[in-house]
């Protein structure tokens, strides 16, 4: 009994519609949760936490957000990093203006602020699609970063132009700032990642998700069925930006601690998240995890393998990384448009019937 669904019959629509309809997947899920909450914090050292696990979780949230927009609704955005910056700067402004506000609430409110900004920049999507929309979001990317570096109000007129996260604690535990323990940072990211993934799953499995996908697949037919395209597109921008904003808030608040908009949230980061979504799988929650994992782990692996062990110069390893990502994107786009998640699905389908393929 490696991987079975035979004999796993559904007796209600609710059980047919659950997140992991196959018992094996359900067990796998609980194992992953147990490892994440109980085992990893015990065995992980700071290096692994800081270079892999924490950035992975933050990127998962960003990738989930972008996937809702691109993968589920079919609206292309190149402004992800700028929206992360909105989340980061909102966190900075909120936590400095209201020092007593619980820091988790600050992160959530930062997501909501980003959501509002996202809707504003999503307005052109009502008129334009595809390439032109991508250009409009690209404009948003440059405009927002320019705004954050240009106007002192956003960085409280600090002389460096940077924003630095003040120290904040909740229930006596320091969450942000230099003295925050890596365990506190880890659990903060984990809680947000799990909660956000759960939200994303709920929103995409119900009426909302179908509305988005209907717009993606054929907007004319969607409208004939009763989908209001305005609400569908803007709600997608709102939800997507909320996720991306929370990711930006965490990136600044608990991970980087101090950022300068242009450096931390440049166009490169927009593309990085976009590649995570494409490689991981468009329109897939699991894909967002796989894509983020892959692109966070790849550079670390290459560095350990090539630089530390084989003595390559660091920039050469970096070039190789870019080439690998480029090649993968092309392969994915040509061979498997739904990315690693679809690959995993195919393997499962094969396993399900194994060893009798018919």
């Amino acid at each position, binding site marked *: 009994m490696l991987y079975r669904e035979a004999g796993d019959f559904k007796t209600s629509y609710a059980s047919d519609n659950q997140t992991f309809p196959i018992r094996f997947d359900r067990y796998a899920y609980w194992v992953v949760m147990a490892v994440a909450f109980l085992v990893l914090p015990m065995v992980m050292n700071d290096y692994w936490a800081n270079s892999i696990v924490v950035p992975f979780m933050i990127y998962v949230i960003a990738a989930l957000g972008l996937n809702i927009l691109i993968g589920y609704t079919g609206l292309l955005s190149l402004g992800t990093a700028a929206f992360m910056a909105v989340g980061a700067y909102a966190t900075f402004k909120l936590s400095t203006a209201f020092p007593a506000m619980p820091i988790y609430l600050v992160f959530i409110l930062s997501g909501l602020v980003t959501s509002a900004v996202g809707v504003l920049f999503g307005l052109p999507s009502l008129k334009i699609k595809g390439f032109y929309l991508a250009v409009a979001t690209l404009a948003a990317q440059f405009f927002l970063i320019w705004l954050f570096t240009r106007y002192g109000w956003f960085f409280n007129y600090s002389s460096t132009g940077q924003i630095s996260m003040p120290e904040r604690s909740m229930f006596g535990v320091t969450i942000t700032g230099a003295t925050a323990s890596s365990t506190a940072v880890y659990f903060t990211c984990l809680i947000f990642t799990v909660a956000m993934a759960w939200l994303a799953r709920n929103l995409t499995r119900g009426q909302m998700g179908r509305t988005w996908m209907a717009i993606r697949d054929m907007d004319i037919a969607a409208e004939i069925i009763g989908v*209001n395209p305005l609400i569908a597109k803007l709600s997608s921008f709102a939800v997507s930006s909320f996720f991306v904003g929370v990711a930006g808030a965490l990136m600044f608040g608990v991970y980087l601690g101090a950022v300068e908009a242009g450096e931390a949230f440049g166009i490169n980061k927009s593309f990085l998240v976009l590649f995570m979504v494409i490689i991981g799988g468009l329109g897939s929650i699991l894909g967002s995890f796989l894509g983020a994992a892959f692109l966070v782990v790849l550079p670390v692996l290459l560095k350990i393998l090539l630089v530390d062990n084989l003595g390559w110069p660091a920039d050469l390893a970096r070039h190789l990384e870019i080439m690998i990502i480029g090649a993968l994107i092309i392969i994915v786009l040509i061979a498997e448009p739904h990315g690693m998640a679809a690959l995993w699905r195919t393997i499962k389908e094969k396993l399900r019937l194994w060893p009798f393929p018919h």
Partner: protein
Amino acid sequence: MLDQPAEGYVTADGRQIGPVVLELKNITLRFGGVEAIKNISFDIREGEIRAIIGPNGAGKSSMMNVISGFYVPQEGEILYKGYKRRKMPPYQVARTGIARTFQNIALFEGMSVLDNIMTGRMNLMKSGFLKQALWWGPASREEDEHREKVEKVIDFLEIQHIRKTPVARLPYGLKKRVELARALAAEPQILLLDEPMAGMNVEEKEDMSRFILDVNDEFGTTIVLIEHDMGVVMDLSDRVVVMDYGKKIGDGTPDEVRNNQDVIDAYLGVAHE
């Protein structure tokens, strides 16, 4: 045309036909210089199967697009349930109980059959954003209730076996059937079918005809049908509108239309004066 009583009547095969539910008055639709519909009026009665026929390019699909709100005619008005319908976008027309299928299948290719049909219930689902986000009791309960209704449509159209199949993988004939299922899931009062049998073989056509009759009979759904196959049209419909070059050239029962000289000329390709 035979005069039918305004309040309705019972057909020879025992179906109840009600009063006029939708009336098109002096509709003219232009695309730039082209007049696709020229001053056409006709009505649709509750519970009837109303066919629109005519040669290629006659303006039949355009007429359907006017009814579903997709095209806005330059002239004329639409009376729905006795009231003049104000200008509204298609998604609002859908909410008034009008559903349709397309001449060129317009399914959501990236979604499963089940999701496509569930999307058809769009207007009947009420759970708000927050409830859905948290998958709160009411939201998941609502999903199950609607799933149950959708399963009835699936049973009705005999597509149980492809429930979870992505639509893109289906053959043409089944796609047409899924599109009908999606429209039916909305529980419409008026169902507009634009060439539901185009490209089908005889057996598939028979199935589709049976489904259309059953929908009409069991749910009392009013059906507007565009179809090129004359045998099917004459068999299924209560009344037929005939269009040619954007004009209405005939309107009546299948027998009346069959014997109408203008219609015969149009179909035999007699030169237009």
